[in-house]
């Protein structure tokens, strides 16, 4: 199945950011295809390379970068939501790209299921 993900909550602030990642990993393990992961609202903060959690904690941003590299996943950050929160091209972690909201609608059209992780 082709699955699209929408992440609307920030890292370390809300369980949605973690659950989305765990869902993505589980879906891949079951042989599903991740069509795209779209980051919106405070979810855009999941893409910041400036993120530096304590050593003994999970690194939410790097985790996405690794998953994308290993599985060729398209990680898209909303440009308007990113600009509002100071997230621009310069501080994107590897594997993420910035684009418009049209990419979210396209994910809804092209995926068999669009799964939303939000509050």
């Amino acid at each position, binding site marked *: 199945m082709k699955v699209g993900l*929408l992440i*609307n909550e920030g890292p370390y602030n809300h369980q949605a950011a973690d659950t989305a990642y765990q869902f993505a990993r589980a879906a891949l393990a079951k042989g599903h295809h991740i069509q795209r992961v779209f980051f*919106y*609202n405070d979810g855009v903060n999941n893409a910041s390379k400036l993120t530096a959690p304590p050593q003994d904690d999970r690194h939410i941003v790097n985790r996405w970068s690794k998953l994308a590299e290993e599985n060729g996943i398209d990680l898209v950050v909303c440009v*308007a*939501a990113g600009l509002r929160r100071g997230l621009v091209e310069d501080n994107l972690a590897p594997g993420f790209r910035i684009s*418009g*909201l*049209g990419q*979210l*609608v*396209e994910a*809804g*059209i092209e995926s068999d299921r*669009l799964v*939303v992780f*939000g*509050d």
Partner: protein
Amino acid sequence: MTQVAEAVERETQTRAVVKKFMYVNRKAPYGTIYALEGLEVALISAAFDQDVSLAFLDDGVYQLVKGQQTKGLEVKNFSPTYRALEGYDIEKLYVERESLAARGIREDQLLVPVQVVDAKEMAALMEQQDVIIGF
């Protein structure tokens, strides 16, 4: 029409996927950014020629109340944008009856024409959708 033109048209038709998108608004217009950024997604999706509808329930019904005054909050009153939805061919706005009643809001206090539906009808509408995005 030539055979080639017919074939091209047939292919264009199969490629033009129209899905039913519903945006579910559950939060008050101010206090968090969900309502504003949710509305932005709805507007963008109009450009994709999809079958778009908006649902308002819980505190989300406050988004459509007339006479919003945001000066004291120092945030932009974006409620006029709901009136622009019609111009984007987004005309299906569903408001849950129970949510209005629980907050003492009447239909004539809303700033756009809507269809008021009860929770059961709302559930049936959701059942028909291909994509549901909640904010």
